[in-house]
Structures are given as C-alpha cells and as structure tokens.
C-alpha cells in the first residue's frame, strides 16, 4: 500500500518555541491514522503544517510523493486534502446546504459571467451542486436541515456539517481535528462508525486528532504519539497501549512502572 501522506523531519517554530520537532509521519493510503498526545503536544500544529496553514521551518510534507509544504491552502484543497477544525468553523451566515456547496467549489467551473447570462453550464452546474448538496446532507444525517443558517444548527449538527463540507471536495485525504469533542457516548459511537464507513465505503484516508482513547483504539490502523512536539511512539493500537513512553507522557514519570504492576496483578 503506497503512502499518501508523509512528513520528513518536519519542524515548526514560533519564535523560540519549538512546536513541532523533526517529526516523521507516514500515512498509508486508505488507512485510518490517529495523532494523539497530551495537550500542547503540537498535534494541531502538525495538522496545520500538513494542510498548508503553516509553513514549516524545516522538513517536507509529501502528498502522494509530491512536496506540498509552503503551498497555499486553496492549492492544497484542489489536490484532494480536506479538513475539519477543532473549534467548528462553518460559514455561519450561510445555510447548511450552501456550506456544502462551497465545499464543492474547487471542483466547479462556472464564472460570474456564466451566472449573469445564465449559460447552459451555469444551469447544469447549479442543479448538480444542489443535488450533491442534498445527497451529502442525507449522508451525514442532516436531511431537511439544509436551509437553516449554519449558526442556528445545534452543536452535533454543526460538527456533521463540517464533515459534509469537507466531503464535498471529494478528498483523498481527510483531516479530522477532534471530531468527537463535546459528544456523549452515543454520539461518539455513531461518529466512530461513520468515520470507519468513510474509509471502508469511500476509500478516503483519514488522519485524525483525538483525545477519546476508545475511539482511537477502536478504529485506528496506526497511532502516532506526540509529546512536546516530538514523536515518541508510533504503531498499532496494541503496541501503543502498552508503550511505557506513552504512558509516562500522559500520566507522568514513573507511571509506566506502576501500570506494569497493575497489569501483572490482574
């Protein structure tokens, strides 16, 4: 399986602060990969570097073997990378379906002139984007809510809408930043299953930042652990669970030994 996303020696500094420190990340195609780590470990910064929001000071980001570091986010979007945000960032003054339609923007062709003269291209495209919008609304379970202003939707609906907007780009790689934040166990379970479907049915590679360990352990093929900007572990869920460095990063020094003791006792 080829690697769809790779970072080599990636580093990002903010003044004197090293947010991401020489991280090598490799995500196989159609995998579900998670990035975990304590707060402030640099996870979102890493995301931002791979999606074009930040330009790393050192290192490279390769998408399908092409370097993309330093490119603008709209170029990266056209290459097939889409993302969601830790604090939901929808277009609050547009309706839900319009949000999804904007997500389709890079794949569309009509210009303002087409709109004015109501060309055939315009008419066809408008009906197809609305159709696609409806379909995506249904896919994320928001059918019927499409004409509500995005800011009026409840929290759970907004989260799903953000995903729908990302999917509208028909991405190859989807970056999800804490998709289950603020959700109760039921919603979390739904979301987990949904993410799996995205990969299983649509073949989208998923890279996610998550704090909920159940989710992470459940669906990840590969987990990368960051602490203070450095990668301290990477591997399958089982390996990560028992990795002493990871335990210590979360629970503090000495915790690894304690945890081993607990396990032996059981």
């Amino acid at each position, binding site marked *: 399986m080829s690697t769809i996303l790779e970072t080599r020696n990636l580093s990002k500094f903010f003044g004197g602060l090293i947010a991401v420190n020489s991280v090598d990340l490799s995500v196989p195609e159609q995998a579900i990969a998670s990035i975990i780590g304590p707060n402030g470990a640099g996870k*979102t910064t890493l995301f*931002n570097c791979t999606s074009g*929001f930040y330009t790393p000071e050192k290192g490279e980001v390769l998408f399908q073997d092409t370097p993309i570091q330093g490119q*603008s986010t709209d*170029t990266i979007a*056209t*290459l*097939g990378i889409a993302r969601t*945000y*830790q604090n939901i960032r929808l277009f609050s003054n547009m309706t839900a379906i319009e949000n999804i339609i904007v997500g389709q923007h*890079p*794949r569309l*062709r009509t*210009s303002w002139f087409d709109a004015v003269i109501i060309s055939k291209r315009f008419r066809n495209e408008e009906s197809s984007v609305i159709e696609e919008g409806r379909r995506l609304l249904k896919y994320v379970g928001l059918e019927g809510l499409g004409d509500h202003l995005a800011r009026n939707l409840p929290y759970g609906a907004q989260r799903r809408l953000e995903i729908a907007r990302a999917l509208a780009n*028909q991405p*190859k790689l989807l970056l999800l930043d804490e998709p289950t934040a603020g959700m109760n166990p039921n919603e979390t379970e739904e979301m987990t299953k949904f993410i799996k479907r995205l990969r299983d049915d649509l073949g989208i590679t998923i890279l996610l930042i998550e704090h909920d360990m159940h989710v992470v352990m459940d669906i990840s093929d590969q987990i990368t652990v960051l602490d203070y900007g450095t990668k301290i572990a990477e591997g399958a869920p089982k390996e990560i669970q028992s990795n002493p460095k990871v335990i210590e990063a979360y629970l503090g020094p000495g915790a690894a030994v304690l945890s081993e003791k607990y396990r032996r006792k059981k």
Partner: protein
Amino acid sequence: MNQNNKTSKKVRVSPVITRSIRIVVGIIVLAWMVWRFYNVIFVTAEYGADTWVRFAFSGLIIGGMYALIAVGYTLVYGILFMINFAHGEVMVIGAFGGYFVFELLNAITVTAADGTEMAFINAQPVLALFLAFLAGMSISAVSGFFLEKIAYRPLRTAPRLVPLISAIGASIFLQNALQLLFGPQRRDYINPEILTRGTGWTIQIAGKPVLLTYTGVFSLALSIILMVALALVVQKTKMGKAMRSVAQDKPTSALMGIGVDNIISQTFVLSGVLAGAAGVMWGIHNGLINYYTGFLPGIKAFTAAVLGGIGNIPGAMVGGMVLGIVESIGPAALAIDFQLKDVIAFSILVLVLIFRPQGILGEALSEEKL
C-alpha cells in the same frame, strides 16, 4: 475520482504574483524617491540647511499633536477593536473649550500693582494657560465619556461594521452640532501675550535666521510631557494595568474582578484628555478653529496610529511624529508641490501598509487562533 486543477481558465492569482508585484513596485518607488531627494540636496540645492531646520521644526510640532491624537485612537482600538471616527471631533471640542476660556479671561480686566489695567489673560498667563488646558481637556474627556456611553456601549457585541457606522454618525452629528452652535466661521484664538503667534527665539543656522516660535516650542514640549505621562500611566498605574488586561482579554479580566465597562469609559476619558490637549495646542499654535478643524487631523492621526501599528501605544507616538515630519519635509525633499502634502502623507501610509502591514512597530494585538 476527478482531480481538478483547473479552477478557472483565467489567471490564477497566487501569492507569488502579488509578492513579486509588491517587490517591483517597492523598488521603483524607492528608487524614485532617492533620485528626487538626491536632486534636491545635491543638484539643485534649492533649500539651505536653515529651511530644512524650519521644516523639521514645524514637522515636529505638528507631529506632536498628531501623536497625542493618535494615541487616543490606538487606546480605543486596542480595547474595543473599533475606529473611533468621532475622535477628531473630541479634539476640536477641546479646542473650543480652550478658546472660550481665553475669551473669557481676555474680557476680565485686573489692575496690576502699578495701576495699569490689563486683561487677566496677560496678567496671569501661566494660570490662564493652565485654565484653558484644564477646560479643553476636561470638556474633551467628558465628550469622550458620553460618546462611548451613548453611541458605542450598546453596540459592544455587534459585528465590526456596526460600531464603525455609529462612530461615523456620531462624528457627523458632533461636527454639525458644533457648526449649529458656534457657526461656520473660523474663530481666532487669543493667546496670552507671551505666546503670541509668530514670535519666538531666532537662531542662526548656516548663517541664516530660523524662527523657533514660542507656541511651537511650547506645543512640542507639552506633547512630549503628556506622552511620557501617558506612558507612565499605562505602565505603572493600576488603571493602566487594568486597561492593558482588558485590551488583551475581556472575559478573563471581568472574571478577575475588573469592571470592564468602567475601564472602557476610563480609556475614552484618557484618550479624550489627550485629544483635548492637542486641540488647545492646535488653537494656540495655528490660531484658527471651526467645527471642521478636527476632521483632517483626525484622519491623519488615525493613519499615524495605523502607521505605527494599531493598538501599539509607542507605535502611535512614533507614527504621529513620523507623519508630521514626513508631511513637512516630504514635499520639499521630493521636489513636489506643497499643495500635495496630503497626498504624500497618505501615500506614505499606503506604502508602509503594503510592505509592512503590521505597521512600523508592529501591532500589539493577538494573532488569529486556528
């Protein structure tokens, strides 16, 4: 899955294009300015050193006034993220305050020890000045206070454009109120005799006389004193600290027990005080005021605040001085008609913002969080 790189058949405007255009334009402009300046200094040598000193001096004076007004803008912007469009009117209200005090003190006559009669304003010039400034600064402070209370406070949570329009409305209202109250004609400031306009010390520069006016020196000195005082207030006093904290993070400041509304009012009062001082200075030095006098200095001072980095108090001071000097020296240095001095001021602003959008000293406001 379709991969669509052709977003449109037209030119893709990438950041690379804009950056290269900026660099090219920058080099052209810089080269032109250097060439003109070289011409003026070395080739035609139109102006002697004495003229340059004269320009520089007047630039400093007006720069000081701009700085005071600019700090007012930046204080308000730093705390409310809005442009107080009506700040120029606050300045001119102060100017009127000083004007009426001087008129009053001019009309009162006192008998001196030797039996001569003179107007109070000349018998006790220092006191008169003090009273005039007190009046001007107080009136401006009160205006600022009520301005915030009436036109801005109800809009605290509205999107950015709304308070801006309200500010524009307040500015128009105040201008016209002043016009309706005091008339459209320009009024002549009566200074105490020791500060008569056009008198001053004459120094020799390069063999030629240069007049350093009393009013000019006075204004410049007072500007500097006030700026230092403001810096001390903002850095050292409790109120200053509270202002800085509210500017950084309102909700947390409120949680810390700071009365955010009060602090905001105090900010407006403080910026009004400075503007009022600038207004009285303007009247003393330039002589003529009317309802419209605050408009252009207001805009220029705001551009100065932006020039220095909006939200940045030392930046506003620097921006004000720089603008004043550029305005005075610019036309001569670039061999451009003096008529175009406003063009130069605005052009400098545009150029600085294009190449250094955060201003000269950088903005003091927090970055966008992702």
